[in-house]
């Protein structure tokens, strides 16, 4: 089974790879995404580029895995990355959810404590 990407595909994937990676790196430097997310998100561009730049490697890999068409391997790996990313997101969201609950509770209890203290101050002054 032979598979040769066209020159248009190579150009398109290269442009996408550069633009996308630059955007990701910029966001990572600005702390908008963390390093682990950078790796996961960059794979969306890196995996197709492997298919374009190393077609023979991909054909061999497809044979090893036992899939007939290399693009099945491409979509399979991309789906896997998306699931890993989703899994991480769900855990992160739940952690944030628990932290928000904790913060709201502690903040509300602190307000009550301060109000109680404030209400006690005039009484203490009178006692003095």
């Amino acid at each position, binding site marked *: 089974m032979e598979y040769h990407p066209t020159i248009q595909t190579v150009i398109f994937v290269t442009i996408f790879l550069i633009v996308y990676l630059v955007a990701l790196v910029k966001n990572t430097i600005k702390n908008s995404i963390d390093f682990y997310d950078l790796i996961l998100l960059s794979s969306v561009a890196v995996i197709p580029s492997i298919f374009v730049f190393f077609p023979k490697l991909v054909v061999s890999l497809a044979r090893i895995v036992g899939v007939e068409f290399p693009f099945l391997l491409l979509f399979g790996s991309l789906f896997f990355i998306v699931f890993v990313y989703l899994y991480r997101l769900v855990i992160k969201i739940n952690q944030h959810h628990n932290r928000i*609950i904790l913060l*709201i*509770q*502690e*903040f*509300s*209890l602190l*307000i*009550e404590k301060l109000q*109680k203290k404030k209400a006690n101050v005039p009484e203490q002054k009178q006692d003095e």
Partner: protein
Amino acid sequence: MNVIPRILLAIPCYNEGANISKILQEIKEQETDCDIIVVDDGSSDNTYFVASQFSHCVKLVANLGIGGAVQTALKYALENDYDLFIRIDGDGQHPPSQIHVLIKSYLTSSANLIIGSRFLLIGDFQSTWTRRLGIGVIRSAFKWLFGRKITDLTSGFMLMDRKAIRLFSAEYPQDFPEPISTAFALERGLTVREVPVQMRAREQGSSSIRGIKIFAYMVRVIGYLILIRMGRHI
């Protein structure tokens, strides 16, 4: 020498401006030796204003749901070194006249968690068949999973001792807190007991769990119960 336990009576409520003063008034009439804390779960009405005229009140800056509100009260109890914690709902379903039933039961024979049950004396209550079916299935699942028959798993009228206060102030279920906290208590080796109490019909509004939602509630509660039971083996 018997030391009188310090008791905190916690009333979590959300938009109960119309009911809360009546309940607080009734509690005062009972002349119980309890400190009262109302946890206003981010109400948009005058609940906080009304409640703070009668007792201490914590206003949550955002609505957390019943689990979050009860846990706030438990943290307050732990911080202020209370021996016992009693929770009653702010919607008027738990008559303050029944508070002494829980306290008396604890003083007679202590347990870490005492649940006030509507069904211990009268059996099942009159309700829609879907609601009865839902409660029956959850009760059976609970008995099968934890080997204990708890007649009123959805009762929020309960008493907790120091051990339970410590446990639940750190970890309290946010979803379906009543049945899940009971399962959680049993799983952590706490003693759980039920006492018969009288409850009233809701004075304002209606239950949020009705119609098809009962089945969703049933499935989710059973799912959580299975997870808690599995937690022992994972």
